[in-house]
């Protein structure tokens, strides 16, 4: 440190000095000098002044984090019906109102605001009389407290931001390693990473609202942060009997609604769920879940559920907890439905699914596998034996594009092929495969095939053709990214025209044309092609991954006639109740097509069935 001289030598005042009668007279010089008084007009405040609040209503999402951080309870959230609300996109019609009878202008609300919509202006004067004390409670907007053109003062900047915007990195197998086998790619959080990730949460509850099953994500995230994993598991099991599954393959609507993703990265809610359930030993989870109270003692009422998919099993889980007897009929050799046969092993190891199902069966749900309704057991028997029946068969059959050549034996439906792979059934692994479709199923089958190719031929040759552009593809970004990493080729905006079959009945390839638009003006699916732009992808296997259908032939004619139908689906009310009093229908076969929606539907329908059964009890 260089020495800095004091510019004016500090005067040596001595305690012993007697002082002077004359020196004070020097002050009289100020008689002739200009006063330092400021003009009466109030000055403009400093650039970062903390004055009255401003709130940009377009940016604000109503997350109420400002309300949480305010140490004086000065911020209250106001529900404004006019405002647009979009729970899935994380927008709520709430805006903060500020009580200047409490505010201390610390600016913490600004520094924590996840969107950066709140700011403090340079305006600082507000006076009012007793009659107008209401003016102390304001709803800040971009115009300022008195609609005066004051500039922004204290604003959020990177330096002042109190939130942690970056997600903890998740350990994943690198592309070259993971392509060799079907090992699970995602390794799970380390303890430290999970704690840090959980600590980022601001408890706004948007995830809870966006989740189809209304999972208590804020609660279990907080429990993880508190290292209380059992509490976390309990919170998860309140709404979701498939934590292992959802912790791995959930489509995480919660994360796209997360308030943190406005200016940073969303909390990894799905991975945290996985972390929590991985952290607690299976036996302990079983004990915890069985602790949850079973509301009524057993009675003689019973429910049959056809299909042991996520929806059916969730409903079974709920109904058992409500004290009913539940039997689940499953056609396949193991329970789990699409979770077992539709999701590749590298995303969801089968033993993890078994754990979840084991918990459900431990609660008293009886699952009968290898039992096809209509063949092994007749629908009529079920109807007579049980008080209520739930159809939860899901969408078992792949939809076909019905283009010429699509009935060739080497043209598979993705769902069929995935099941084959999962069951380790034999089929000829193609050297070159073309996949039609841009959803997650297409990615699943492409990546599964790629692994097989790598294992058998040590060479990957898979093309995925989609109608949509790369950005509009339905598959998750992470899926797309990982597929590309694994050497899969994406061909976007290609419409399938024909599966080219050679004269010798072998598959030659897929003829595609350029796709201009996918949807028409009214938003209906109606692709427009440019037939001049024609490309043929050679392949010895074509896989169609363009959606699934349901098969309900087992219901029998009588029931089919009694039911009401709508566009080939059973018509149900909001709670999954069909036209028949004792019959419900649920799952992928009704709406949506992912696990969490199926679970949500399962809960809903279970509630409806429970109400129905309770009424029966009253009558009997």
């Amino acid at each position, binding site marked *: 440190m260089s020495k800095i001289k004091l510019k004016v030598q500090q005067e040596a005042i001595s305690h012993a000095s007697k002082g002077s009668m004359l020196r004070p007279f020097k002050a009289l010089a100020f008689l002739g000098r200009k006063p330092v008084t400021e003009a009466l007009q109030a000055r403009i405040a400093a650039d970062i002044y903390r004055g009255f609040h401003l709130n940009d209503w377009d940016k604000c999402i109503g997350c109420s984090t400002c309300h949480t951080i305010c140490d004086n309870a000065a911020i209250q959230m106001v529900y404004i019906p006019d405002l647009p609300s979009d729970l899935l996109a994380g927008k709520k019609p709430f805006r903060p109102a500020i009580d200047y009878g409490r505010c201390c202008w610390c600016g913490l609300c600004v520094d924590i605001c996840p969107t950066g919509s709140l700011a403090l202006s340079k305006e600082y004067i507000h006076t009012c009389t007793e009659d107008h004390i209401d003016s102390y409670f304001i709803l800040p907007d971009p115009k300022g407290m008195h609609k005066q053109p004051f500039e922004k003062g204290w604003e959020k900047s990177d330096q*002042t931001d109190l939130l942690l915007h970056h997600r903890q990195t998740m350990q994943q197998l690198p592309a070259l390693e993971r392509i060799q086998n079907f090992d699970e790619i995602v390794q799970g959080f380390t303890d430290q990473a999970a704690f840090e990730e959980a600590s980022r949460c601001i408890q706004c509850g948007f995830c809870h609202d966006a989740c189809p099953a209304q999972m208590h994500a804020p609660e279990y995230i907080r429990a993880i942060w508190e290292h209380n994993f059992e509490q976390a598991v309990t919170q998860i099991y309140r709404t979701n009997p498939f934590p292992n599954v959802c912790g791995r393959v959930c489509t995480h609507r919660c994360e796209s609604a997360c308030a943190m993703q406005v200016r940073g990265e969303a909390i990894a809610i799905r991975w945290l769920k996985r972390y929590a359930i991985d952290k607690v030993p299976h036996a302990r989870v079983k004990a915890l879940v069985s602790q949850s109270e079973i509301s009524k003692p057993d009675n003689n009422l019973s429910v049959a559920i056809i299909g042991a998919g996520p929806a059916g099993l969730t409903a079974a889980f709920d109904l058992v907890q409500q004290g009913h007897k539940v039997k689940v009929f499953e056609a396949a050799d193991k329970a789990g439905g699409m979770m077992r046969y539709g999701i590749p092993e590298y995303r969801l190891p089968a033993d993890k699914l078994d754990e979840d199902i084991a918990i459900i069966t431990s609660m008293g749900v009886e699952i009968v596998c290898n039992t096809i309704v209509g063949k092994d057991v007749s629908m009529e028997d079920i109807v007579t034996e049980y008080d209520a029946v739930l159809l939860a068969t899901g969408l078992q059959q792949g939809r076909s594009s019905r283009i010429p050549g699509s009935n060739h034996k080497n043209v598979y439906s993705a769902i069929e092929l995935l099941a084959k792979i999962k069951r380790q059934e034999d089929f000829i692994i193609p050297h070159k495969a073309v996949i039609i479709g841009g959803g997650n199923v297409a990615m699943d089958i492409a990546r599964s095939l790629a692994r097989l190719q790598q294992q058998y031929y040590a060479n990957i040759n898979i093309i995925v053709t989609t109608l949509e552009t790369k950005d509009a593809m339905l598959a998750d970004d992470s899926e797309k990214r990982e597929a590309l990493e694994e050497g899969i080729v994406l061909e976007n905006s290609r419409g399938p025209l024909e599966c080219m079959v050679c004269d010798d009945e072998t598959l030659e390839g897929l003829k595609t044309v350029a796709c201009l638009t996918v949807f028409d003006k009214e938003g209906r699916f109606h692709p427009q092609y440019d037939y001049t732009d024609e490309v043929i992808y050679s392949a010895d296997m074509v896989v169609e991954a363009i959606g699934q259908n349901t098969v309900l032939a087992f219901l029998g004619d009588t029931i089919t006639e009694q039911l009401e139908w709508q566009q080939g689906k059973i018509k149900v009310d909001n709670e999954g109740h069909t036209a028949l009093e004792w019959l419900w229908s649920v799952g992928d076969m009704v709406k949506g097509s992912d696990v969490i929606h199926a679970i949500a539907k399962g809960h809903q329908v279970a509630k409806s069935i429970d109400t129905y059964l309770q009424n029966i009890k009253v009558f009997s």
Partner: protein
Amino acid sequence: MRAENYQAVTHPESHEFELNFGPNHPGIEGNYALKVRVNGDKIVAAKADGGYLHRGFEKLMEGRLWIQNIALVPRICVPDPVPMEMCYALGVEDLCQFEVPERANWLRVLQLELSRIAAHLFTFGGHAATVGMYSNMFWGIADRDLILDMFEQMTGGRVYHMYTIPGGVRRDVGVEQLDKISDLLDYLEKRLSDYDNLFFNNKIFIQRARDTGILTPKQALSWGVTGPNLRACGLAFDVRRDDAYLCYDQIDFDIATETAGDALARNLVRRKELAQSIYIVRQVIDYLKKDKSTHIRCQIPNPLAWKVPAGETYTRVESSKGELSFYIVSNGGEKPYRVHVRGPSSMHAVQVLEKLVTGGRLEDVAQIMFSLDACPPEVDR
């Protein structure tokens, strides 16, 4: 029915009567009271009466998150709020084992020393006003206001800055701002000679302040006197040097002392300290201008999910009034388990004031209180 502040003169045999100094009295610093028993002009007994500014800070802090308390702490001492923020932040950092960036530490010293200058200017003014010299008060407060302007530009607030948070500071200070501060220091130095002429060399003031409220070094030590008041007794103790925090060990400054221990000596110590603070601020500005780092805060946890590891710490800071300490206990929770604030004035304004005033003259009560720079909100909390 009688008001406490409105008592009829009774004429007992002893000619003694009670006089209430405050809470509503211009001779008392802040909202505080001193009940004095007077015989003629002589004070026979004095008893301090506090609690007029009691808000239950320590209780409130137990009910708020660690981050929320940064808004609460500066309010413990109104004229000199920065050391409060500082002391709290140091405590939390100690418990959390934060590594505070170097630049933040220097910025904190800048704040602390500017706040000290402002507080001392305020105290001169107050002291001058108690002896009827209002010009000095007017000057002092007007010059202090210029420092508040600097605070406003640096921190966004004039009086309560809420600038120092555990882990660092909230805003960086640019070079232009440093130049402005530098100019202000030049101005203040020029003004010092005006103060010397008008006040510190004023014969009547010296006559009044000398031998008023004398503290001997022995008394000062045993009564727990700290800060400028202790240094006015000839004891060169300063927390900045003895129990160095931030980057005070890298800064060159003298500890201002006087030996007489009276009101005049205390005032002169403050006058010298003011010059020292200007010198310190110059060094800080020099450092900050050379330093190119923009790192002003270490990574702190999300304020809404912040648990401080269990433990206890005792942090001390030299405020303009003396030794300020916080005893912070955490039980590993999201809120402090216990925060004990030891304001320097809790000694000066109660026991020391009572003892110094007793036996003195009525004229000197206000002067002694202001010369001790007693700050009632620190006592009441």
